[in-house]
């Protein structure tokens, strides 16, 4: 598998490389760690879950909101239940790899990034579909925010 890291933001490229170069057993363990590192929602979303957009392509409930700060940097807010660690893991990866980046960098992330992490063989392609859907939602929300500015 070739990893075309050139088009990925450095933080996400590093995560992709970590996954792709690890033995399958370790990839699950890493995904679990990302599920644990997903930050909890700030009060303005925790108290108003309706402000988050559902991502129905995931097998488990997943909700996402995106904000742009004054410098047009993207901030991600994702919520998934503790009993859905795989979904939380995908969310944790994108949070670690994309949060705080300029909007243009987030929009430039290729849609196939999830397949470059070599996760399909450890979690199954079906479960991976939710991860691509999450990225798609984030990018669409960023485009909407830019259009609204």
């Amino acid at each position, binding site marked *: 598998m070739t990893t075309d890291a050139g088009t990925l933001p450095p933080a996400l490229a590093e995560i992709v490389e970590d996954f792709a170069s690890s033995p399958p057993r370790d990839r699950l363990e890493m995904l679990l760690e990302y599920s644990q590192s997903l930050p909890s929602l700030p009060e303005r979303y925790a108290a108003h879950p309706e402000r988050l957009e559902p991502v*129905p392509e995931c*097998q488990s409930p997943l909700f996402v909101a995106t904000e742009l700060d004054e410098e047009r940097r993207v901030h991600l807010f994702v919520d998934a239940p503790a009993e859905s*660690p795989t979904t939380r893991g995908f969310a944790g990866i994108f949070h670690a790899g994309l949060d705080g980046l300029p909007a243009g960098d987030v929009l430039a992330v290729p849609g196939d990034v999830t397949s470059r992490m070599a996760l399909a063989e450890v979690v199954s392609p079906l479960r991976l579909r939710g991860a691509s859907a999450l990225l798609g939602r984030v990018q669409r929300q960023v485009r909407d925010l830019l259009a609204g500015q």
Partner: protein
Amino acid sequence: MALPHDPDPRLAEYAHPEKLVTTAWLAEHLDDPDLVVVESDEDILLYETGHIPGAVKVDWHTELNDQVTRDYLDAERFAQLMRAKGIGRDHTVIFYGDKSNWWAAYALWVFSLFGHPDLRLLDGGRAKWEAEGRPMTTDAPQRPQTDYPVVERDDARIRAYREDVLAHLGKPLIDVRSPDEYTGKLLHMANYPQEGALRGGHIPGARNVPWARAANDDGTFKSRAELEQLYRGEAGLAESDDVVVYCRIGERSSHTWFALTHLLGFERVRNYDGSWTEWGNAVRLPIERDLEPEA
């Protein structure tokens, strides 16, 4: 050596009470060397966040399925899997999992294809065990390899292929998907990924009994009387019927297969695991749709 049955009076009313154990019974027998606990979940990482002490994980997608052909493991690879998990042919295997044991029932059904003698479900599954504050651990189980024999899979008894379903048309079929999938309004469960069915609807003549109607809110099975009312009363099944159950890929229908076979004592129930992801894509197979025309 198989373990004694759980004598709990709540289970005694079922046709085969030996196929279920209560959380209290399992807690008491957890250290028995003749028992192996298997966790099977929808979420592949849930086990890693904490599991019943000593339980091994079996993933339906990456471990029980052949990764090339759409089929289950063959006899040789099933034996290899069992040896690696530390499961012997004489072990009593207790399955539990998330989502009211939906995937646990599926794993139990796949193990049944290989005729493993003593397979049971933990009534209420993972959620009930956790809700009762029973012990969970992230410690990996240490189980010695076994010499599990190579036993041929016997599909004919409890598994139906699409040819079998075609030959079965006119006899009782139970579609356990949600009403919107059954009528053809949705191609997949609400809030679940579209798994690629090209057509919506159901197999002609199938009755719709969503699988979760067999479960209580705490994940345990409904009482015998409630299950009788559901399947004999509402769905009109009789014990002597030849029944085929199906859903989307055969997982939810494994739960119904378990209820009909082991809790109500039906003798001829087959699970069509090709289910809607095969039937809804196959060329020239008959489909029924119940959608009301848009007003």
